[in-house]
């Protein structure tokens, strides 16, 4: 039966999550919510300079302070395993600090207060070096160089050594395409770095025995990766470190890597005690992994009929102090919503004296999409075309060769555009100083390394163990899929996120992969249980296994002795399982393939105050293909949350660096994420074009919603104020200045 026609019993219902009650009563345990007997408190000393050589570190006064049990610097770290050099260097600086906030030393003490005092007693002598934090300055041939000798072979000449990687994608011949256009638009766009802004700061607690075996409790999107990275940085065996993921207070990509965790391990090792460390908000903003900042040149050609004839983009992504590949994930999806004959994108990775960037929801895509969708919108204005029709004319379909190479399977872009066009929002009248913006966006989605085990308990209830921290209700969704597959009530299934000692490796909760990949593995594990039950009953009944079928939550005999054997449901099977050969379980380990691409279309209405340049969002609608929404509330939640993060990126969030290369806005007061009073309700439409790669048709939904909003808002503001906005965030002074320009 295809996913489209299948009638579901559990899937699609708005059921409540198993962790819900704990989270509304304060009982749920997050990263900072746990203590151990004899536990010490860790604290990190951070660089006040954007770029400096460390001449000396004197820790003696700190070590002598009563209550200080360990002080560490880079000298206390082993040579890391190959491939983890940058990770180690980012967690604890070597001979140079590379950005404001870079860790230099750390202490563990018997109280937070003493730890704080102790780091003030550490004396560091710095030789300040020239720095660069701006992407445009960093690429100039005479810019201060962050690292020498990293430039890879394909990087074009004419830049500083900070331009370290080059990539390109596309097909056709763009010059021919531009010649065929009736209008060609060329623009340069800029975006500033933003932060994921999870409300829970990083927190972790670890202890280590004299045999170097360690345990860690940490808020993370992926404790298996934390384990692997800590083992790499501390030159340990992965098996000797057991990591348990706490409940997690938001991650959005920013909690897929290590910052404090190896430091806590090193402190635990040196002190011989359990050590807990919780970042301050200032540390989170200065020294975790924000996004890229960008400069993007875009050129788009269009004919009078609205057909896009060629597109070109050259993206410079500032990715912090170490080499990264984020720019590829801007260059690939930039024009992915369109079926193009001629497309070329180039990506250049630029290093600067800023913190090493981490993933943030569809990492790399939102800026590129902002540039591409802005250019297309401006061309529509220039040629007097309807932006919805232009997108419909050019939309990629199943079978289209994508802008980055592969040919698309079936997906829901056209359906999303049709739904957007039919939505009352698209036709609603606008008032004075208001504008409506439209943008489409794309994300690849991902499957990846996944292990799941499902157990039939003695009473017939079912336990699912998986390895992906649940941020937005995934335990519910996975239980629902297992319940559906086994034909039992949702309440009979409980899904638990287990520690690294209890299951094979799992990639983090990233790439919009959990409901897809963990769901897939859980369904296959449930099928393994069904097959085992069928085989055992066939033996008991002395019938052919093909005559035992699992239907509506029970095993039925369908052979020619029908009527001889009563159907047995899961609880009855559990009851006799031990007489039939022992416990019954299913498990599945795989790299999940077939994630199924994702498209979304956003409509934004904004009003721009002509006096101040202040923008308010009046109405917002998100339309997205979910393949199949397992729990629609949680899908809507992803669409709404992603859209609002994108609105923040478009309008008010940015990293502000001073002349000294230091971050100036290190708190939520100045790094202003959207608050409730900034926003209208966020309307959602879930389109369901099943993903052929999943038994129930699921596509990941988490990342795509942050891709279109930058452009949707920019297009709305540009239309509202009559001036094309090319520089994010569109803060009031910037918008006002653009309006005052002739």
């Amino acid at each position, binding site marked *: 039966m295809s996913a489209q026609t299948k009638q579901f019993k559990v899937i699609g219902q708005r059921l409540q999550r198993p962790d819900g009650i704990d989270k509304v009563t304060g009982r749920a345990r997050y990263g900072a919510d746990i203590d151990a007997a004899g536990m010490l408190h860790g604290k990190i000393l951070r660089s006040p300079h954007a770029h400096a050589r460390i001449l000396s570190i004197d820790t003696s006064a700190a070590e002598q302070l009563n209550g200080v049990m360990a002080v560490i610097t880079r000298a206390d770290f082993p040579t890391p395993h190959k491939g983890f050099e940058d990770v180690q260097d980012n967690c604890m600086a070597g001979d140079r600090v590379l950005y404001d906030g870079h860790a230099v030393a750390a202490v563990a003490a018997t109280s937070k207060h003493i730890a704080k005092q102790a780091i003030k007693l550490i004396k560091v002598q710095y030789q300040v070096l020239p720095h660069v934090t701006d992407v445009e300055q960093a690429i100039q041939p005479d810019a201060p160089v962050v690292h020498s000798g990293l430039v890879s072979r394909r990087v074009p000449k004419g830049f500083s050594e900070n331009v370290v990687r080059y990539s390109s994608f596309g097909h056709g011949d763009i010059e021919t395409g531009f010649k065929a256009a009736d209008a060609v638009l060329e623009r340069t766009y800029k975006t500033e770095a933003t932060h994921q802004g999870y409300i829970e*700061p990083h927190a972790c607690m670890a202890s280590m025995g004299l045999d170097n075996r360690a345990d860690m409790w940490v808020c993370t999107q992926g404790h298996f990766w934390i384990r692997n990275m800590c083992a790499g940085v501390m030159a340990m065996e992965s098996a000797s470190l057991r990591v348990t993921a706490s409940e997690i207070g938001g991650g959005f990509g920013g909690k897929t890597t290590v910052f404090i965790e190896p430091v806590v391990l090193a402190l635990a090792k040196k002190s011989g005690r359990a050590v807990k460390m919780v970042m301050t908000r200032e540390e989170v903003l200065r020294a975790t992994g924000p996004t890229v900042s960008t400069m993007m040149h875009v050129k788009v050609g269009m004919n009078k009929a609205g057909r896009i004839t060629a597109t070109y983009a050259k993206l410079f992504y500032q990715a912090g102090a170490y080499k990264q590949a984020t720019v590829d994930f801007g260059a690939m999806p930039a024009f992915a919503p369109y079926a193009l004959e001629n497309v070329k994108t180039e990506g250049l990775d630029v290093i600067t004296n800023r913190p090493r960037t981490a993933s943030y929801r569809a990492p790399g895509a939102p800026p590129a999409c902002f540039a591409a969708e802005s250019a297309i919108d401006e061309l529509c204005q220039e040629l007097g075309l309807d932006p919805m029709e232009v997108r419909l004319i050019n939309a990629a379909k199943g079978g289209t060769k994508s802008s980055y190479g592969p040919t698309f399977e079936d997906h829901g872009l056209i359906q999303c555009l049709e739904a957007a066009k039919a939505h009352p929002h698209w036709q609603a009248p606008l008032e004075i100083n208001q504008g409506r913006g439209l943008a489409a966006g794309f994300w690849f989605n991902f499957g990846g390394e996944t292990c799941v085990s499902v157990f039939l308990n003695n009473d017939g209830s079912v336990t699912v163990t998986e390895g992906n921290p649940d941020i937005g209700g995934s335990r519910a969704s996975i239980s629902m899929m297992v319940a559906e597959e086994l034909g039992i009530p949702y309440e009979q299934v409980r899904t638990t996120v287990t520690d690294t000692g209890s299951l094979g490796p799992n990639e983090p909760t990233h790439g919009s992969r959990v409901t897809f990949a963990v769901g897939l593995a859980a369904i296959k594990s449930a099928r393994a249980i069904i097959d085992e039950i069928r085989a055992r009953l066939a033996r008991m009944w002395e019938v052919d296994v093909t005559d035992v079928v699992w239907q509506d939550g029970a095993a039925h005999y369908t052979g020619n002795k029908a009527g001889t054997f009563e159907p047995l449901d899961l609880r009855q099977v559990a009851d006799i399982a031990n007489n039939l050969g022992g416990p019954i379980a299913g498990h599945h380990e795989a790299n999940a393939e077939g994630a199924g691409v994702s498209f979304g279309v956003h409509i934004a209405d904004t009003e721009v105050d002509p006096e101040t340049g202040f923008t308010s969002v009046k109405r917002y609608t998100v339309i997205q293909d979910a393949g199949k929404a397992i729990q629609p509330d949680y899908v809507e939640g992803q669409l709404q949350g992603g859209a609002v993060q994108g609105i923040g990126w478009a309008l008010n969030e940015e990293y502000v660096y001073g002349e000294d290369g230091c971050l100036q806005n290190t708190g939520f007061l100045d790094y202003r994420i959207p608050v409730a009073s900034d926003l209208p309700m966020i309307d959602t439409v879930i389109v369901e074009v099943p993903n052929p790669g999943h038994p129930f048709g699921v596509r990941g939904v988490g990342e795509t919603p942050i891709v279109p909003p930058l452009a949707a808002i920019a297009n709305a503001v540009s239309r509202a104020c009559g001036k094309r906005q090319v520089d994010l965030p569109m803060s009031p002074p910037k918008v006002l200045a653009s309006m005052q320009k002739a």
Partner: protein
Amino acid sequence: MSHSHVSTTINGQAVQYACPTDASLLEVLRDQLGMTGTKEGCGSGDCGACSVSLDGRLVCSCLVLGVEAQGRTVDTIEGMADKNKLHTLQTKFLEHAALQCGICTPGVLVAARSLLEKNPDPTEQEVRYWLAGNLCRCTGYDKIIRAVLEAAKAMREEQA
């Protein structure tokens, strides 16, 4: 560091503690009393994750000293449900999926309760402005606002 002895009432129970004079109420709750339901997102009054009521007034417990609780009443998320019965706000938050990661949830619930005590029939805009000091990064606020409005409605009906 000098310590002060404090007698206070937390969630209806008389509580005594000795705390450093510079410790915030949030630190006392979390680190000394083990009441980790109240969260810390910033420690500077900007996120609302640490919201509690002090003598019925909504405060950021990270901006209140532990010693300031002397002789007063503190209400935290741990006291919101009546034993095994959830508060209507908690029920509506679950029904409307008004939480994703849930780290902001205790603070939002405490703040929303304080709003509904003052104003049992708030408009959407009143809810949005009252909760403007409670950051949520996951939900985009939509489902939170709906849940609060629905809870207000249900509570009015309970009263009627």
